[in-house]
């Protein structure tokens, strides 16, 4: 046996016993304070408290707290975009309270426009972030339109109803969870959203999920800020009496549609429909082929 091999054997076996010694030593109750940092876990739990504080206390204790919203999406060219902006939580809470209190008695004007007005500061934060990004990327014309609309299409769809009671998730198929809340993954549903089963743009920006009109009004508001002639369109997509398929879409005038066909005339302008409920490469300006019929469409907000 060579000296070298004897050395190798001794060193290797010594390493084993030394490691075992360290492990056994650590099993003793007194010598591990240096290893385990209880503060880290406390910090974790406290952060959760902080998160609670900032989310739950909106409108209650600290309205000036800001939350960072990060928005990522891909446009029709599969170019990735990302913006982040801060919004005041008090503003989201204010918009929510406004929506809940919005009933027949104070229904004086256009509900969509009122929701946009109450969410003004939140929408403006998103607009400013988009504006900065758009300038940096030098987007304009159709590219700019696609940029804005795909940003709204990308968050997942959530079924929203204004009826209390049974959760609509059960009618949505196996892809939806039995969780009657607006989940960020889009697998939830929402019931009892009054008055018209629509969230304010501020709530949509915060929870990043919504249905057709929730999305359409934010897209409309953003396009208006970018000086486009936009509108919110409502109409029916089915001839069935039982389920006429009331639907809401974004309308854009003054731009050549990608798929010419359906349009709505309003105040001397032609508004072409744009499906914004979800992202799909075929959901381009003017395309209504995803629907059976195009019936009784009109501009409700312009």
């Amino acid at each position, binding site marked *: *046996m*060579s000296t070298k*091999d004897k050395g*190798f*054997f001794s060193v*290797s*076996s010594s*390493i*084993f016993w030394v*490691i*075992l010694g*360290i*492990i056994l030593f*650590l*099993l003793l*109750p007194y010598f*591990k304070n240096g*290893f*385990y*940092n*209880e503060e*880290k*876990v*406390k910090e*974790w*739990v406290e952060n*959760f*408290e902080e*998160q*609670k504080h900032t*989310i*739950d206390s*909106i409108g209650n204790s600290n309205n000036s707290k800001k939350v960072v919203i990060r928005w990522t999406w891909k446009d029709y060219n599969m170019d990735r975009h990302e913006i982040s902006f801060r919004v005041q*939580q008090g503003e*989201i*809470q204010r918009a*929510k309270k406004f929506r809940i209190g919005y009933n027949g008695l104070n229904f004086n004007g256009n509900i969509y426009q009122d929701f946009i007005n109450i969410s003004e500061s939140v929408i403006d934060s998103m607009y400013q972030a988009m504006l900065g990004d758009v300038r940096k990327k030098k987007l304009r014309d159709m590219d700019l339109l696609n940029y804005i609309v795909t940003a709204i299409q990308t968050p997942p769809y959530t079924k929203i109803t204004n009826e209390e009671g049974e959760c609509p998730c059960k009618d949505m198929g196996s892809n939806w969870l039995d*969780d009657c*809340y*607006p*989940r*960020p*993954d889009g697998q*939830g549903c929402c019931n009892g959203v009054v008055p018209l089963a629509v969230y304010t743009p501020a*709530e949509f920006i*915060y*929870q990043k999920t919504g249905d057709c009109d929730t999305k359409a009004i934010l897209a409309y508001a953003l396009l208006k800020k970018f000086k486009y002639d936009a509108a919110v369109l409502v109409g029916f997509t089915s001839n069935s009496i039982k389920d006429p398929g009331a639907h809401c879409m974004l309308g854009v005038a003054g731009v050549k549609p990608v798929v010419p066909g359906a349009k709505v005339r309003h105040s001397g302008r032609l508004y072409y429909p744009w499906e914004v409920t979800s992202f799909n490469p075929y959901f381009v300006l003017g395309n209504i082929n995803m629907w059976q019929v195009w019936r009784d469409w009109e501009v409700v907000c312009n």
Partner: protein
Amino acid sequence: MNLGKYLFGFRDEYLNKASETERAEQTYSYNILSLMFLVLTTLCIAAGIVYGLVIFQNWIFAIICGLLLGGVSFILLLLVFFINMTTRHTELYQKMTNMKEVFAEYDDHDFTGISDEMALQIAQQKKMELRDRNQVTETPKFHASNIITTTIKVTLVLVLSCLIANAIEIFMFKNKINADIAEIRNSETLKKVASRDKDSLNYLEGKNALAKWTLDVVTEKETTFKMIDTYSILLTLEILDRGLGNWKLLLDFLFALLFLVPFILVRKSKRYSGGVFLKEVALSDITTSLMFFILAQRKCQQVKQIITTDYKYDSFIKVTKDVN
């Protein structure tokens, strides 16, 4: 005490031809290896008990878990040990893995008249001849397949070490983990989120189910918690990971080293691969195979002889000729 005898079949008769020094050295080496193996198996049993306690919160089930994990690890580790035990006496290794070469030397021999003792003597002669010829060890030649087999072995040992490391770390820091679990249990946030207050915006985050789950796994049900105050291994590991931070990496590395050292030793130290024990085991294997080959040949040749003398196949051949 000869621990190696029970685990690796390290019997004294294998070392009859070895010098006193060699014998002492080999006994020590295999005793150390057996002790390492027993330490690793004990750690596996302990880890099984820890996991069992967290999952079932019941000592009987925990012990069953410990025995199960210990048993599985015992077999796996022993398997990897044995796979790594390859003699560096190249000729012996080659002959042992391909006995046809040895048998070919006896193809033309007439064994019909030999007794069992004579067969044993022939085999023993071969054994002595091989022993004399193989005095020097050689470094095993590299083969591409070594990369795959070594990777599989190392991965297996590392997976096992990772499993054991987490359990032992949980046991080491159980009091600290329990203190942190208490913090979580008493978190007002969790309670509030779990209660799902529709007037708050909590539900917008979809955290309700998680909060309920977290509170559920840190709340005692029918019996008191045994060691860790939660039913969830995932939560325990999350807390452990956060509490230990980078120290966890170091501890995991120590455990990995603890599990790998015995295998490195068996593989690289000449005390094992170049030692007398493995050489004698290989020789014994060759001898036994050769002896049974001779006995089988003897029987075969005897049967052939009986057929030649007692059965007149020539007459059958003649009949066939007449018919034609």
